[in-house]
């Protein structure tokens, strides 16, 4: 599943790396601990609005810019997920190899897989398909 904090973290890290700045520099400028900044960049921690503002300020970028990039990325991910071949090789392999089981126990193990279709691959993108299956990997 795509998480907003993961995308925000990626964008922030990309900006920092593009500026060739270290976690130490940016964390000091943003007055946030280095450990916390690392977790935010890795999408492990949800940055508060205050913290996000302060990180953006330290990086000299606007929050709007960050959010726009996040939004662009999200759009790209959603498109990829809805493409006919949007099923990743691993997902496809898993749907083909084992016999489709009807037991609820197995079904709960793959909550994000497209509706258990006996067919190898759906002919058309499933309209209701969420972003989840592809980008989870």
């Amino acid at each position, binding site marked *: 599943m795509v998480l907003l904090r993961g995308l925000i973290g990626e964008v922030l890290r990309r900006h920092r*790396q593009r500026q060739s700045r*270290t976690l130490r520099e940016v964390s000091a400028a943003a007055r946030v601990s280095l*450990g916390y900044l*690392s977790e935010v960049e*890795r999408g492990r921690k949800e940055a508060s609005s205050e913290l996000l503002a302060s990180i953006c300020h330290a990086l000299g970028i606007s929050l709007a810019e960050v959010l726009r990039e996040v939004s662009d990325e999200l759009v790209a991910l959603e498109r990829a997920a809805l493409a006919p071949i949007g099923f990743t090789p691993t997902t496809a392999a898993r749907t083909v190899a084992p016999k489709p089981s009807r037991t609820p126990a197995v079904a709960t193990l793959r909550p994000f897989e497209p509706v258990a279709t006996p067919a190898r691959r759906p002919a058309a993108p499933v309209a209701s398909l969420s972003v989840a299956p592809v980008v989870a990997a």
Partner: protein
Amino acid sequence: MLDGAVRAVEKHGARRTTMADIATLAGIAKGTLYNHFRAKEAVFAAAVDAGMTALTEECITVATDDLADALALAADRLGTHPALRRLATDEPATLSAMTTIDDSEPWERARGSVKSILDASGRDSSVPTVEVVLRWLVSFVGAPGREVEAQASVLVKALPIQSQPQLQF
């Protein structure tokens, strides 16, 4: 389970933590916990191991970018770890035993972790270098440091840059 152990130590300290505490904080039945571990010492050992593995992985990622960042991160995590800080105030003897470096298996694994972080940064990872970094990091298990980031920068500048050529006989 291991998370439950960390939170139990954070709350009660190591000595007063019981298997029941760990199970409660992990949200599982005591029997389930006993299926995996016979005693709390075994849970603690597994928790330390898991914590170290996670920290190593994180540091390896960061080290590919900047070694000083990775070392500062590790020092920061160790120095501010809630369970370790609880031990520091309540059971200094336990913590002191934990920071006594020797050649036992867990410490060899810690050396391996440090080496892999140095390797990820492309820096020298010979025995003396690993030992210097390990001892610096372990000092933060005992107590948090001041200006950790600046310390990490100083340390990295002092470390040999390139791998020492191996002597061939």
